[in-house]
């Protein structure tokens, strides 16, 4: 069998993934106790598959080595945290920033500054213990639903006259969802203040 592109690191990478996941788990428990609601709807985590990592190396025209996979490419470990409300996204972000041994390499706030197509998410690249990079995507449920649908147009087999309309309508939906997300946030803040 061909040697893994991750060399002997796969076990350690899984440990890092689990450390971050269980730290998010702690935050969930703490906030659920304190506010009566869980900030996180669900979490997805994965180590990028052997095949897609090699494919990414080829696409970026870099050698298919462990160094490329762990140093040049930063999403070998990926975690997506889907939250109920916008403020929860920032709570999780703040929590990750304050974690021990975690260094924030990059943070891109596509919630405050949405992409032109309407994509919203908060992206972070973390580095754990000076070793492994972790890519984090934080978003609300509605942003996640939108991203899942938007993803499909990239996989359409053929371009059609409809594409322009679909892209424009997706953008409109994104802006409406963003508006509703914020209204839900405002209502929750009011309820919490009254209680």
């Amino acid at each position, binding site marked *: 069998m061909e040697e893994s592109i991750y060399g002997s690191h796969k076990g350690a990478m899984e440990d890092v993934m689990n450390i971050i996941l269980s730290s998010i788990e702690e935050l969930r428990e703490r906030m659920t106790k304190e506010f009566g609601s869980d900030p996180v709807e669900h979490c997805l985590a994965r180590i990028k598959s052997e095949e897609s990592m090699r494919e990414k190396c080829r696409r970026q025209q870099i050698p298919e080595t462990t160094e490329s996979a762990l140093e040049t490419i930063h999403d070998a470990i990926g975690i997506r945290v889907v939250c109920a409300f916008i403020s929860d996204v920032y709570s999780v972000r703040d929590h990750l920033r304050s974690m021990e041994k975690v260094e924030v390499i990059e943070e891109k706030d596509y919630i405050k*500054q*949405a992409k032109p197509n309407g994509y919203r998410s908060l992206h972070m690249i973390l580095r754990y213990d000076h070793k492994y990079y972790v890519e984090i995507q934080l978003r609300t449920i509605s942003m996640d639903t939108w991203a899942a649908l938007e993803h499909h147009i990239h996989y359409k087999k053929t371009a059609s006259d409809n594409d322009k309309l679909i892209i424009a309508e997706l953008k409109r939906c994104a*802006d409406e969802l*963003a*508006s509703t997300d*914020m*209204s839900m*946030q*405002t209502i929750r803040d*009011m309820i919490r203040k009254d209680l």
Partner: protein
Amino acid sequence: MKILLAEDTADLNKVVTQMLEMQGFDVDSALDGQKALDLALSNGYDEIILDIMMPKLSGLEVLKEIRGRNIVTPVLMLTAKAEVDDRVEGLDAGADDYLTKPFAMKELLARVKALTRRGSQYAAKEISFGDITLKSDSLELISSNTVRLSIKEFSLMQALLLNQEHPVDNNYLLEHVWSDEEDVAEDTIWLYVNFLQGKLEYINSNVTIEGDKGGPFQVIVNE
């Protein structure tokens, strides 16, 4: 419905004011152009009646000043019969209608009613303030980011932007934003102010809405 009447002939001012009040309008009257401008900048009106010839500031100067400040309240100009150029200049500067003196009270009343009926359609397609743009055709509130507002949020934002020079009280908002609904209380207005405030922050705007529960409210640009 609130009307600003600017007419320097005291007797005529008094007669018109009384007649409009009898018809159920709420009237603020001014006897010179400066007073009219001050009132127009510090209150929200549904219509403004401007005499052209007035001391301190002419009706035309008042009109240009308020239109320059995004106030799109319908304006009826009162002009002397001979002053064709004034009428043209008035309409060019943004007046919506004119009436030549002397006029019949009946006609003045009919024109005032016609203008207040059309009032809301006179709103601009796009209003800009600070770093935001509010678009009426798409209900978009745009800064570095865009959100789509609900109809009521849009109407509230529009009311605040059209009255950017002064605070707007709850009564004005009930009459102009929630006129089609009964049982709207201060809580509803406060919730919608909070919706908008949240969305302004969300699109990263430097505009905020100032005011506490119960009003009044005013849009402010934070430099």
